[in-house]
């Protein structure tokens, strides 16, 4: 299992060619209380870097960018009624969607945990 991070503060955890995507604890802290999450459609195809959802906090709306290219195979419907889960458990129950990677080599361009910590100034 691999966990990688983007410069835009998303994480992706890959198992058997499917990545689960969410935002980091640093990102949720910066956003503040999350009040709404817009997720992509299951079956949609996205390219790395595409806007693939929106997370709205009490302060602002932020795009979620696809960390890799692929097909959306599941979305976290529980966030519709409980968007605050993104604040409470960003690396777990607050996941956004699952994506079947079309080009696993794209993961090589993402940061590992140490590099991300440095990027986020932790």
């Amino acid at each position, binding site marked *: 299992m691999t966990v990688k991070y983007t410069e835009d503060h998303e994480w992706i955890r890959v198992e058997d060619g499917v990545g689960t995507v969410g935002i980091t604890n640093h990102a949720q802290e910066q956003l*503040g*209380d999350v*009040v*709404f999450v*817009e997720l992509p459609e299951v079956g949609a195809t996205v390219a790395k870097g595409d806007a693939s959802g929106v997370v709205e906090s*009490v*302060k602002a709306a932020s795009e979620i960018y696809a960390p890799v290219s692929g097909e959306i195979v599941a979305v976290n419907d529980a966030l519709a009624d409980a968007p605050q889960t993104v604040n409470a458990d960003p690396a777990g129950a607050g996941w956004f969607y699952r994506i079947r990677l079309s080009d696993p080599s794209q993961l090589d361009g993402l940061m590992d945990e140490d590099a991300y910590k440095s990027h986020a100034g932790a």
Partner: protein
Amino acid sequence: MTESPELKTTPLTELHEQLGARMVPFAGYLMPVQFPLGVLGEHRHTRAKAGLFDVSHMGQLRIDGADAAARLETLVPGDILGLAEGRMRYTQFTDETGGILDDLMVTNAGDHLFVVVNAACKEADTAHLRGTLGDAVTELPDRALLALQGPSAEAALATLAPEAAAMTFMTFRAMDVAGVPCLVTRSGYTGEDGYEISVPAADARRIAERLLALPEVEAIGLGARDSLRLEAGLCLYGHDIDTTTSPVEAALTWSIGKRRREQGGFPGAARVQAEIAGGAARRRVGLRPEGRAPAREGAEITDPDGRTIGRITSGGFGPTVDGPVAMGYVESGFTGDGSEVRLVVRGKPMPARVARLPFVTPGYKR
């Protein structure tokens, strides 16, 4: 902590930082946008109990002279001559075209008028006032301003100033708070009962700490101040009102007294009187999106067929409403409660309805 040297501070800046606030630049000041409780928690706490806000960045002025009210009336459409001693009133500085230069609170403090203006406008407002009132205008830079808001505000302030409990909404008293001479009004900008307390800068921190020591009082930042005033249907200058909006368009006609409507005598009176008589081409309304997605400032408002009819001026999530809320201007045919409109969010038209303001029932003590 990123402190730009050019940002001004208030007598409570150090306290905010010690309380763990996230500090941001606002109107030239370093101000707390949120405390560790967070915007949602702070909002809900204020509605349930009491919140303490540092609004010391706002401009406090006094106007002296027997003719202060008459002369101030040449700048604002509010009835200042009719303002009884110990009472306060909301009004606006208008320009010659009937646009709004700023909104303000005017208090008849007996031997003078006490005026509170917005932080971002205070230098321009002071110059504007001096242009008409000259030396009668005195800035009060050595005073802090605290707002204590919420249903527990009365009980909380009564622990330091028992006299405050007897006041009613939009009244003023000079009184000692914890032994410090203060100017207290029963007012605020959250839709809740509460007070604004003008306190000598040197005593501000001590009084704030006394209030924060009470279990029902929490420190509240600008983030929750914004969501509270939005739910209360109150205008934020520079967003919901500015020089392009008249008081009638802004649905502030209630703040213009009968005598002023008839007699005019304030900048832009001709336009304001014409709009009162014949209606304005557009008006500020409340908007409730039907889904859960907030529609924010700048979003286009269209009719159900997609024709643009206005724009959102404030919008976000209303924690007490438990859903998205917004305010904006729409063409006169769409101002009725329940009118169906669309709000364009990220290119998509979202169904919404015009809604009565405020979104929450005010808790004012009449």
